[in-house]
């Protein structure tokens, strides 16, 4: 694990990461990943002492070189006592109490920032003067970064309380602070987007966050190329669908968001090569209606049909244009009685979580008709984040952690154009989470645990994703130059994350068999 470039990475926040239970007596997960053992409860004190150590080292150049060559440090991984020993070596009294109490949020956050500082002082015995220079620069920048985050939180809090004047002045202050931070990468870049989103929320709330569907297409495609999240989603879902279709000759896939249809060539190819020959494959693709009269769904269907023809897979495509998923009615999908049905939802279900009290909640009605189709498998891929909490400040904090990690993972992308456009894709999501409310806020991400509860309650039972999916995901990840991606298995579901923070979760479900379901389907077909 390398140092975090952005100052913020979640690990000990309240997300569904299974590794963090009680924070008080536990060793901090982030630092331990880098080889340092610090108790989470001691983080503030250690942070304070490290700052003092920095100040001392900057002011006492002569003694440093001596320390570097002659000091013997025991237990280097025990960060707290190392710092104490360094401070006492340099004859500074070790403070007993921490006075960082005015920064309550810093708990889980400060660790990686200091990690970076510590690394720059490190264990090397080289040019300590150079190191001091580096330390000073890093310290100043880290200070600004910490202040930026602090200001962002304070601004979000004042927005929540309705103190718009204060929020406005904080935004001005943050913009000023941005000049002293590197905005090309890391916390500076992410903070810039969040500052923009906050100011948009305050000053132009009615400005539309989402662009045209053509823009969305382009952003999506570049996001697909720049990072593995969508590919992971597609490949994992395909593997599960392939296994569920085993032994069936007539199969029907319902795709909740066709986009460019990039998920389906691989499935068509896999079905073509399956032992026993390919089935008859029907694909129903749901997508927004095209604004300019082009039937973009049909065009994609034609290309997929051409591919299927080349590999001798009998294929039929149907497009369903709907701007909202809850506008789709099951009869539109024309599911046949003897077909094995797979429902595929890549980051679509969270859009249904906005509740409109006048009608049945959209998510329940959609889950209901999915179940009435009696699908062999329902593949669900969702962002692993908690962006649907009722309190704005909670959502804001979560989003800050989540998107910082996402941007971090994007840093290593070597394709410059794709990377920039992928960032715009994420910026749009950030905008929606921060600026929009009510029915306009569609990015209502919820963590895997909540989806599990919801799907279990709606009459689905989980299907475990097998080891083939895991292996495939692992190989896929080796293709990406950044080594920080990790695939983890979580009770039969797979998550893809960056440096042990899961960012996207894939799961598979099957409708619990119910005596009323077959009647429901026959009735639908009679209509």
């Amino acid at each position, binding site marked *: 694990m390398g140092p975090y470039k952005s100052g913020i990475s979640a690990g000990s926040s309240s997300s569904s990461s299974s590794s963090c239970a009680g924070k008080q007596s536990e060793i901090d997960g982030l630092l331990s990943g880098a080889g340092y053992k610090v108790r989470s409860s001691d983080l503030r004190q250690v942070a304070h002492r490290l700052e003092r150590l920095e100040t001392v080292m900057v002011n006492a150049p002569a003694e440093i070189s001596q320390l570097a060559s002659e000091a013997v440090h025991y237990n280097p991984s025990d960060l707290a006592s190392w710092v104490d020993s360094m401070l006492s070596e340099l004859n500074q009294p070790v403070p007993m109490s921490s006075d960082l109490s005015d920064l309550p949020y810093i708990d889980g956050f400060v660790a990686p920032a200091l990690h970076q500082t510590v690394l720059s002082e490190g264990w090397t015995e080289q040019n300590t003067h150079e190191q001091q220079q580096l330390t000073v620069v890093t310290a100043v920048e880290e200070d600004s970064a910490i202040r930026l985050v602090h200001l962002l939180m304070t601004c979000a809090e004042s927005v929540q309380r309705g103190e718009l004047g204060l929020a406005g002045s904080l935004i001005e202050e943050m913009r000023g602070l941005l000049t002293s931070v590197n905005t090309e990468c890391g916390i500076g870049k992410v903070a810039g987007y969040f500052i923009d989103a906050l100011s948009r929320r305050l000053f132009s709330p009615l400005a539309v966050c989402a662009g045209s569907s053509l823009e969305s297409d382009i952003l999506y495609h570049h996001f697909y*190329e720049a990072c593995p999240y969508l590919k992971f989603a597609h490949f994992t879902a395909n593997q599960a669908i392939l296994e569920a279709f085993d032994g069936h000759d007539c199969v029907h896939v319902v795709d909740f968001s066709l986009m460019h249809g990039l998920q389906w060539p*691989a499935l068509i*190819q896999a079905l073509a090569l399956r032992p026993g020959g390919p089935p008859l494959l029907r694909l129903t693709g749901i997508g927004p209606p095209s604004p300019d009269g082009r039937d973009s769904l049909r065009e994609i269907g034609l290309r997929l049909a051409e591919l299927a023809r080349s590999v001798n897979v009998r294929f039929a495509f149907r497009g369903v244009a709907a701007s909202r998923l809850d506008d789709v009615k099951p009869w539109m999908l024309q599911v046949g009685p003897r077909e094995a049905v797979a429902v595929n939802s890549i980051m679509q279900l969270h859009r249904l979580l906005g509740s409109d009290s006048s009608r049945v909640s959209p998510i329940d009605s959609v889950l209901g008709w999915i179940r009435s189709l009696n699908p062999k498998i329902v593949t669900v891929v969702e962002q692993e984040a908690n962006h649907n909490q009722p309190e704005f400040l909670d959502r804001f904090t979560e989003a800050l952690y989540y998107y910082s990690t996402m941007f971090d993972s994007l840093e290593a992308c070597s394709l410059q154009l794709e990377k920039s456009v992928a960032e715009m894709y994420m910026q749009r999501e950030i905008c929606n989470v921060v600026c929009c409310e009510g029915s306009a806020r569609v990015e209502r991400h919820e963590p895997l645990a909540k989806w599990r509860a919801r799907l279990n309650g709606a009459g689905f039972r989980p299907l475990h994703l097998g080891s083939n999916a895991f292996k495939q995901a692992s190989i896929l990840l*080796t*293709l990406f130059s950044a080594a920080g991606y990790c695939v983890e298995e979580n009770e039969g579901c797979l998550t893809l994350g960056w440096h042990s923070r899961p960012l996207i979760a894939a799961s598979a479900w099957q409708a619990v068999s119910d005596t009323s379901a077959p009647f429901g389907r026959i009735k639908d077909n009679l209509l």
Partner: protein
Amino acid sequence: MANEKEKKLKFCINDHRDVLVEILKRLDGRSLGVAASVCRLWCSITRQDSVWESLCFRHVSPPPSDVRPVVVALGGYRRLYMVCLRPVILSRLSRQLSLRLGNGGAGDSERIKRICTRDEVQLSLSLFSIDYYERLGGGTGRLGESSASSLMFLCKPVNV
């Protein structure tokens, strides 16, 4: 007299195309590329898909027999190797090498084999189908691009 004897003993591989094909079938990807620049005959042989077919599935056992029509339909074994399989193998190799160097370069004597596993082949086939789909114009709607944009992430330089 000596000349005639010389002529009888002289064996020119280029006169025995079938043998040449059998030999070239056993080369690895890089050597095939080198072989292509030897002479026109060798170049034409290295463009035969059957040579690349052996390369792709050499170490996968049992060798998948019914894959050929699909691979041919999607663009042929040479393209499969160059666009998908080779980057997959090279990424894995570079990852293994960097891990090995990180661990102190243990055991250089054990060569990291450039063979592909069955899972790597399957993933490559999936990526290959996406490549074909994009060349049809299915990805961004632009027809006939020689290097599909979705697979650009495979084209990063790998130092192995």
